[in-house]
């Protein structure tokens, strides 16, 4: 008994040193002894800045609470991902975060985990299970906010180009917003739809966009709801010398995107994004709530933020850290929090 107390004390001291004032002893069971709580992150997608940043969010929040995090990475192998859930069950984890994946392959695996008494949350994959809360970075809102800004800047009559690849879930959800805006504003002419995911994406999109711009010189607005798309369109617009005539609206943000948006005379005027690290933190917090018997709700939505070129220039924002400092709503989402829950310090 004494040993356990001592260990807890040592743990609190370590955490206090790292993260400032955290009232650890106040956390409800089983998190009153967080070092004994094992959680697993089972990933489907992991390559790229977004997923890297998501992982860092999961790691910091898990560390702040003091939980023992295991990361399973299936690298886009759907069958392997399902096996990894079983592996996590065998390992005796208390909670699982499923990050992306296919409904068909993950549905049964997730059910097996729930049957084994494990708490599960899912990020951006619908496992069709009432016991499993869905973490989402509302892609629909992402598209909607960007388009609202486009309407505000350009009125409701313009010629638009649209970058879209059907069959990719987040892009399909962003497409819903585009369809709505088109229906509501009949004076918007969709002159061209193009898009490809050929790697490197920005380069392939730039080649396509050059052709589209040449064939449709009247385009004044391009809706490119993915930052790689926007980057490619921007290269094409610059090469065609049309940067003054075209405005690009997109989604997602990174340090590289910020510098592209801030280039003098850049056509990329606005983007809408959720911070993937924040989504990672929210995933862990939702799981922590579940573990302590609270209910985070069937769907936990991390709201997106509009980021305009003007804002970046006015505040002289150079990278993601600056952005977080100037935009508190980008650095932290007030979602899935509790009084007892320690939050990562900024």
């Amino acid at each position, binding site marked *: 008994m004494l040993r356990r107390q001592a260990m807890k004390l040592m743990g609190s001291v370590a955490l206090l040193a790292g993260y400032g004032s955290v009232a650890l002893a106040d956390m409800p069971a089983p998190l009153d002894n967080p070092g004994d709580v094992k959680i697993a992150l089972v990933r489907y997608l992991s*390559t790229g*800045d977004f997923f*890297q940043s998501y992982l860092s969010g999961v790691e910091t929040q898990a560390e702040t609470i003091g939980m023992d995090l295991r990361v399973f990475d299936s690298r886009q192998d759907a069958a392997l991902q399902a096996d990894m859930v079983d592996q996590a069950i065998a390992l005796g984890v208390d909670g699982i975060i499923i990050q992306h994946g296919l409904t068909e392959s993950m549905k049964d695996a997730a059910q097996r985990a729930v049957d084994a008494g494990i708490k599960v949350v899912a990020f951006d994959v619908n496992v069709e299970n009432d016991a499993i809360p869905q973490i989402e970075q509302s892609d629909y809102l992402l598209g909607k906010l960007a388009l609202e800004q486009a309407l505000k800047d350009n009125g409701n009559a313009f010629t638009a180009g649209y970058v879209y690849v059907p069959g990719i879930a987040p892009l399909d959800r962003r497409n819903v917003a585009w369809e709505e805006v088109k229906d509501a504003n009949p004076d918007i002419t969709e002159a061209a*739809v193009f898009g490809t995911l*050929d790697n*490197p994406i920005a*380069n392939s999109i730039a080649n396509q966009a050059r052709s589209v711009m*040449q064939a449709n010189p009247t385009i004044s607005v391009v809706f490119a709801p993915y930052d790689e798309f926007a980057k490619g369109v921007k290269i094409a617009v610059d090469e065609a010398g049309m940067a003054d005539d075209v405005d690009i609206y997109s989604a997602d943000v990174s*340090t590289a995107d910020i510098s592209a948006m801030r280039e003098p005379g850049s056509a990329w005027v606005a983007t809408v994004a959720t911070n993937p690290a924040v989504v990672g933190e929210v995933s862990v917090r939702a799981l922590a709530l579940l573990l302590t018997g609270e209910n985070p709700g069937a769907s936990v939505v991390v709201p997106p933020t509009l980021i305009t070129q003007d804002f970046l220039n006015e505040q002289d924002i150079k990278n993601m850290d600056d952005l977080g400092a100037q935009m508190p709503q980008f650095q932290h989402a007030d979602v899935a929090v509790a009084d007892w829950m320690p939050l990562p310090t900024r």
Partner: protein
Amino acid sequence: MTRETLLTFAIRFGFLILLFCMVIYFSLSANGFASPRSAAFILQSVAITGILALGVTCTLVVDGFDLSIGSVATSALMLSAYAMVILEMSAVTAVLLCLLMGAIVGLINGLLIVKFKVPDLLATLGMMFLLIGLQRIPTQGNSIATGMKLPDGSAAEGAFSAAFLWLGRHRFDLFVEKLVPVPVVIFLITAVVIWVFLELTRHGRLMYAIGSNERAAALVGTNVNRYKIAAYMISGVTASIGGILLAARLGRGDIASGNNLLLDSVAAALIGFAVLGAARANAFGTAIGALFVGILLQGLTMMNAPYYTQDFVKGAVLVLALVFTFYLSAKRSAGGKT
């Protein structure tokens, strides 16, 4: 007799006539296709895959194959970004470093194949995976951009220098102001150099000899191994040139596997077999092959064709080209005998 000459004519000029017809068709039906600016960006869109394809042509000539070119290109992309943004080196150093990397990868590929007797497809496949992983290790899988956060918490201070970006973005005046992008010029120069090397020099002819009959070439005193290694080194260096141009155009170090670059450039080289009825890898054919795919794709994009038709069309062209090469050429040689 007339039928035979017709067949010979079809084999020799069929592909060029098809190319010509396609240009006429798009000029009439796609708005804005027939203009010097269109020509410039079609060339730009094929410049990078074209340069890679010229490298793979050299390995095809010695009856080899290089699957690693796509990942060599993306490794050069990452290396140049790493050198400039994180190590804060100059543009010249970054370019030299990339070329050196390409040459070393080519050398290792060549040695694996020649000295260790690993079959070419397998050796370069291994190299491909190795490089896809290797290029991500220094940045833990992150893309490289100015101001990025480094593992020690500070922000990267370096930037892509203007001289380096010039390689991807500057345009030379030709009739119209700011028309021809640098990558196109480099593509054309590479094409001419490789063409001269393969067709007009003794070394090039020996490489063709090795490709058609390695033993015979060795028996007449050719240093087969050295030429094979040279072919892979050329391929590695051209691939790294492609990667440098890609980095200069994008202005950041994006992680990418480069598999699409590989497939597109191999397709261009194979289509090249059919041009002028060569029925073998050749630099002129490769350049035309790359251009053919480029014109087709850009024309279709201008006509608003959806993205999935593009892969279909690429595939159809490749199959057609292979039929030209293997069926018609075989018929011609059979016709010659009887």
